[in-house]
C-alpha cells in the first residue's frame, strides 16, 4: 500500500517526466474531461456522472480510515445521512434557502455524529471497531426513523434546490450543469486535500498506526487521539458527500442512514483499491456502470446485487489490492 518510488518514464523526446509532473498532468486531463462532460453528455449520463462523483467522495472519505489507518468503518452511513439531514434542516428553515448554510449545517451534523461514534468506537480495534461503528450508525438510523415529527420518519424530507450564490459575485439558478461543476470542484478539492493530509506528518502517523499500533504508541504518539481526529476528518468529507447528494436529489431519506450505505462505501473501496484515494472513485464508477448495464440488459427487476456481490467476493479473495492497485502493479511490471 505504500507508494513505491516510481521509475522516471522516458518520453519519445528523451525528456524525463517526474512522477509529480505525471500526476499533475493526469489530474489536469481528468479534471478537464469532467468539466467538459456536462456540455456533451445527455442529461441522464450527466446526472449519472455527478452521482458517481458524490459516491466517490463518500468512498474516498472512508478510504482515509480503511486504507490509511487500517480501520474498516461500517458507520459512514451515519455521517452521510447526518450531512443529508443537516442540509435539509438548513434548506427548510432558511428563507431564501441558502446553499452555504446547507453545507455548514450538514458538516456540523456529520461532525457531531463523527465525534460521538469516534469517542466510543476508537476504544476498540479491527473487527470490533467495524462492528461498533455499524451499531452506532444504526442508533442514528433508529432516531431518524422514529422521530417522525422532526425528520419526517420513513418518508424523509423534501425541499427544493437553493439558488447558487457566491456573495457579491454570483447569484444564479442552480441548473444541473452548474450542480455538476460545483460537485466536480468540491470533489477535486477534497481529493487534493485528502492527498495532502495523507502525505502530511499527521497522515504518516495514521499509516504507522495501520502498520504497527503498539509500536506507534510506544514511540509516544497518542494513538487514540489520532484515531478520533481521523474518524472526524473522514466523517466531515462523508458529510459533505451527504450534503451534495441531498442538494442534487432534493430530498433526505432514512434509507441512506441505514448501514447498507456504509457497506456500499466499503465495496467501492475494495473494488477500486484501498489506500489510493482515487481508487474508491473508480470503484464507485465501475460499480454504478455495471449496475446500470445489468439493469439495462436484464430489466429493472433484475437483482443486480447478486452478480455484483459475487464480483465483490471474487475481488476480496483474488484481487485484494483493487482495480487501481492491480492496474498500477501491472503497469509497473
Amino acid at each position, binding site marked *: 500500500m505504500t507508494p513505491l518510488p516510481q521509475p522516471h518514464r522516458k518520453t519519445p523526446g528523451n525528456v524525463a517526466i517526474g512522477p509529480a509532473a505525471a500526476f499533475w498532468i493526469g489530474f489536469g486531463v481528468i479534471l478537464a474531461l469532467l468539466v467538459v462532460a456536462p456540455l456533451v453528455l445527455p442529461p441522464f449520463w450527466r446526472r449519472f456522472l455527478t452521482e458517481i462523483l458524490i459516491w466517490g467522495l463518500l468512498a474516498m472519505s472512508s478510504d482515509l480510515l480503511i486504507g490509511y489507518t487500517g480501520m474498516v468503518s461500517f458507520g459512514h452511513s451515519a455521517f452521510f445521512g447526518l450531512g443529508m439531514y443537516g442540509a435539509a434542516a438548513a434548506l427548510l428553515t432558511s428563507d431564501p434557502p441558502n446553499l452555504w448554510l446547507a453545507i455548514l449545517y450538514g458538516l456540523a451534523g456529520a461532525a457531531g455524529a463523527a465525534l460521538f461514534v469516534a469517542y*466510543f468506537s476508537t476504544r476498540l480495534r479491527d473487527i470490533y471497531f467495524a462492528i461498533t461503528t*455499524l451499531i452506532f450508525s444504526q442508533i442514528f438510523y433508529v432516531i431518524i426513523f422514529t422521530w417522525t415529527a422532526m425528520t419526517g420518519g420513513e418518508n424523509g424530507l423534501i425541499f427544493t434546490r437553493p439558488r447558487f450564490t457566491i456573495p457579491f459575485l454570483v447569484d444564479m439558478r442552480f441548473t444541473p450543469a452548474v450542480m455538476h461543476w460545483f460537485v466536480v470542484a468540491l470533489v477535486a478539492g477534497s481529493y487534493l486535500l485528502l492527498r495532502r493530509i495523507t502525505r502530511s506528518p499527521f497522515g504518516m502517523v495514521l499509516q504507522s498506526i495501520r502498520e504497527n499500533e503498539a509500536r506507534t504508541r510506544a514511540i509516544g504518539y497518542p494513538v487514540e487521539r489520532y484515531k478520533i481526529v481521523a474518524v472526524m476528518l473522514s466523517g466531515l468529507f462523508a458529510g459533505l458527500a451527504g450534503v451534495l447528494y441531498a442538494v442534487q436529489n432534493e430530498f433526505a431519506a432514512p434509507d441512506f442512514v441505514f448501514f447498507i450505505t456504509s457497506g456500499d462505501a*466499503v465495496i467501492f473501496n475494495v473494488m477500486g483499491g484501498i489506500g489510493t484515494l482515487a481508487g474508491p472513485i473508480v470503484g464507485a464508477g465501475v460499480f454504478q456502470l455495471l449496475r446500470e448495464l445489468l439493469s439495462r440488459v436484464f430489466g429493472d427487476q433484475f437483482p443486480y*446485487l447478486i452478480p455484483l456481490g459475487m464480483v465483490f467476493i471474487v475481488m476480496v479473495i483474488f484481487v485484494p489490492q483493487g482495480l487501481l492497485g492491480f492496474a498500477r502493479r501491472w503497469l509497473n511490471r
Partner: protein
Amino acid sequence: MDLILGFVQSAPVELIIVQTINGIVTGMILALVASGLTLIFGIMDVVNFAHGELFMLGAYCGVVVFALTGNFWLALLTAAFLVALFGAALQIVTLRPLVGRDPLTTILATFGTSLILQNYALWQFGPVSRKIGEPITSQFTLFYLQYPWYRIAVALLSAAIIGAFYLFLKHSKFGIWIRATTQDRLMAQAMGIPVPWVLTGVFAFGAALAAASGVLFAPLGGVYHTMGLDWVLKAFIVVVVGGMGSLGGSIVAAIFISLLEAYASIWVSPAQAVIVSFVALILTLLFRPTGLFATPK
C-alpha cells in the same frame, strides 16, 4: 414524587410479568442466534455478517418444507440440515481462501454474501411477508390475556438446543477437536486434526443454529427478506456486551438485552425500545470495553 408514583402505576405488576416472559422468549431465540455467531467468531476469527441471512434462509426453508409437508418439526430439522450444508459450501468457497489473512477480509466476504442472499430471497420469494402456522395452538390464561404455549415451547426448545450444543462441545470427539483448534490451530494440525474441515464444520454448525432459530421465530414474526438484519444487529450488540467469543456471556447478554427491551416497550414503541440496548452497549464500552464476561486469553 407524584411523577415517580405515576410512572410506577403506569406499569402494573401483571404487565411487568407478561413482559418478563416475552423478554425471556425473545432472549432465548436471540441467544441461539448469538451463540452461532460467537462460535464462528471464537473459533474461526470470522465475523459473520451473513449470519442474519442464514437465519432468514432457514426461515424460508421452513416455509417451503412446511408448505409441502404440513409438519413444523420436520420443517425445523430439514431447514437446519439444508442450511448447514449450504453453510459448509459457503465456507469452502468464500472463507477457506481467506484463512490466515487479516480477519477484516472475512467481514468483507461475508458482507458480500449477505447482500447476495438477501437479494436472492427478494427475487425468489418477493417482498410479501410469509407465515408458518404455530405447531402448538393451545393457550393458557395469564392474568387478562391468553398466552400461547408455543412461545414457552420456543424458549424451552432454544434452551435445549443450546444445552445439547454445549454438551456436544464438551464431550464429543468433534467438540474436543473444535476446542483444540481454538486453543492452537498449528498444534492441532500437527496432532493430526483436520483443521480446515473443523473450520468448515464449525461454520456449518453455526449456520444450523441460525436456521433453527429462524424457523422457531417464523410463526411469531413472519418471514421476509430483511428479517435477518434486525437479528444480526441485536446479535452483534449481544456479542459485544457479552464479550467476544464467550458463549456463556452471549447467552446471558442475550436474555439481559431482550428483557431490557421488553420492559422499555411498556412505555415506548418497540422500534424505539431498541435504543435501550444501544445504551447498554455504550455503557459496556465505557466501563468494560472487552465485554462483561470476556474470558482473558
